[in-house]
């Protein structure tokens, strides 16, 4: 059998061409344009300005730096807030509980909704005066818990993490359940005979056996976190002030105001961060493949 005849390379043509031209090329061009003064008024005339955009990002008083910080913070915290509860919920459901299928279907449901919809919905629910959350708290006589969920500087990030978890926990949980369902019961029985308690079983049986699910959740979670836009744009639009601004919201603002060079510079910084994270993850994956 001639391999090049039955597995022709032209099968690769369409996806590779599309991916290279409409996904990768813009990123590479972006690196180039990030060193220019490209803007909406330049009418095709674009000048090289060296590191000026980057200097502006790192030194100006416009708080771009805190935007970068927020992106990293969101990535770390949103994952912790989703992964840990999801793991325990998955263990609970996997241990056998009546109505498991129904619980799983319901908890997964929010993650299929568009972020825009979730954002609009929660601007209503989190409304201070007549939003559902404060009304429910009032109804339960828990008035002291009422908050200005989206406008109080001390609360707004917690609201965002809450909404993000509302959407994501079921999804993460479903992936964990898949991993858990492959662990043979006998492993736990053996651990129990050896006198292992819940935490020891978790540490020495469960976690090593579901490393695949953990990995998938981390990859999806981290890449989502670094690129987060929709939910913040719709819920707070970066506010109050610039308190919840992230890289992508700044990048969109700069684009809207015609400062294309600056916008691509911010995007290039994000590209760099994701590239570093990506290399670490892919290295880890290929190591796992070799081990098998």
């Amino acid at each position, binding site marked *: 059998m001639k391999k090049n005849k039955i597995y022709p390379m032209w*099968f690769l043509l369409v996806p590779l061409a599309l991916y290279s031209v409409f996904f990768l090329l813009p990123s590479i061009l972006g690196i180039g344009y990030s060193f220019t003064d490209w803007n909406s008024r330049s009418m095709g005339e674009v000048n090289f300005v060296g590191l000026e955009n980057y200097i502006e990002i790192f030194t100006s008083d416009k708080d771009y730096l805190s935007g970068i910080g927020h992106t990293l913070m969101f990535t770390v915290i949103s994952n912790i807030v989703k992964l840990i509860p999801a793991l325990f919920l998955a263990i609970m459901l996997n241990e056998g509980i009546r109505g498991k299928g129904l619980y799983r279907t319901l908890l997964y449901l929010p993650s299929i909704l568009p972020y825009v919809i979730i954002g609009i919905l929660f601007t209503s629910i989190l409304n201070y005066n007549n939003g559902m959350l404060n009304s429910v708290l009032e109804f339960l006589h828990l008035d002291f818990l009422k908050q200005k969920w989206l406008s109080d500087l001390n609360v707004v990030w917690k609201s965002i993490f809450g909404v993000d978890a509302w959407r994501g926990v079921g999804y993460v949980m479903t992936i964990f359940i898949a991993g858990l369902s492959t662990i043979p019961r006998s492993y736990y029985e053996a651990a129990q005979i050896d006198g292992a308690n819940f935490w020891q079983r978790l540490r020495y049986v469960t976690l090593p056996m579901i490393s695949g699910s953990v990995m998938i959740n981390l990859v999806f979670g981290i890449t989502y976190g670094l690129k987060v836009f929709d939910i913040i744009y719709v819920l707070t639009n970066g506010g109050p002030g610039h308190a919840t601004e992230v890289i992508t919201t700044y990048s969109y603002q700069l684009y809207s105001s015609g400062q294309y060079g600056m916008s691509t510079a911010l995007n290039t910084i994000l590209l760099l961060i994701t590239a570093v994270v990506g290399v670490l993850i892919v290295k880890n994956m290929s190591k796992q493949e070799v081990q098998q």
Partner: protein
Amino acid sequence: MTKKRILAVLKHVLMILLCLAVVLPFYLVVINSFKTKGEAARMNLSLPTEWQFSNYTEVIRKGKLIQGFLNSLIYAGVSTLIGVISSAMASFVMSRRRTKVNSFLYYFVLCGLFFPVNYVTLSRVLGTFQLTNTKAGIVIVFTSAMIPFCVFTIRNFISSVPVELDEAAVLDGAGPLSLFFRVIMPMLKPVLFTCFILQFMGVWSDFLTPLYLSSKSKLFPMTMAVYQFFGKNTNYWNYIFADIVLTCIPVILVYLIGQKYIIGGLTSGAVKE
């Protein structure tokens, strides 16, 4: 034994509370979408005093929802079809011919799983192809963006399809195209369905791409139409909620029909390890 009982009850209580937290917002949306403006503004969970079914017809007319629906359908349907099938063809060759070039190309495509899209320069690239503000341009962008995920998922799956099938088909005189479409594709059905459903829902929900790339309202998908409508009618929660219901029905339907494949697909990667 009693301790176990109490634990089981506590588990159910926790689960029911969590499910309530999920279901209540859905209920809030549906119930308020049938109220009058004044009633909906109070945002409570009681039934409407009078069911306003006209909210829906009003929203469909005002919110340009039919156009949005058709646009979303074109974007999601066409790009997913091209993206999944072409990725499957590429994954097939990459998986069967493990040359150095192919493994390089595989990791080259995989980069796309992590990188952000640079929409600013992307709009420039679209411009050089005369695709600015066109449906074709938006479809191409969506297709390109889903290729890394599809290649990643499908290539893993193809390794489990026995090579003997290929050999038998070639002995029977099959060329590469008929080998792929007649023999391999049917074997890949589950993973192709998974990719199709996940990506379809992904494109349907996407907001960033049309936000950057469509400046004409004629091109808006449903998500953009809803967002615009929300911006223009901030106080008409009855309409906004009706709009939300109509936007969500398609994805919820796709989810309920394809649930088996979503969960199966999410898990295939996880279980493989």
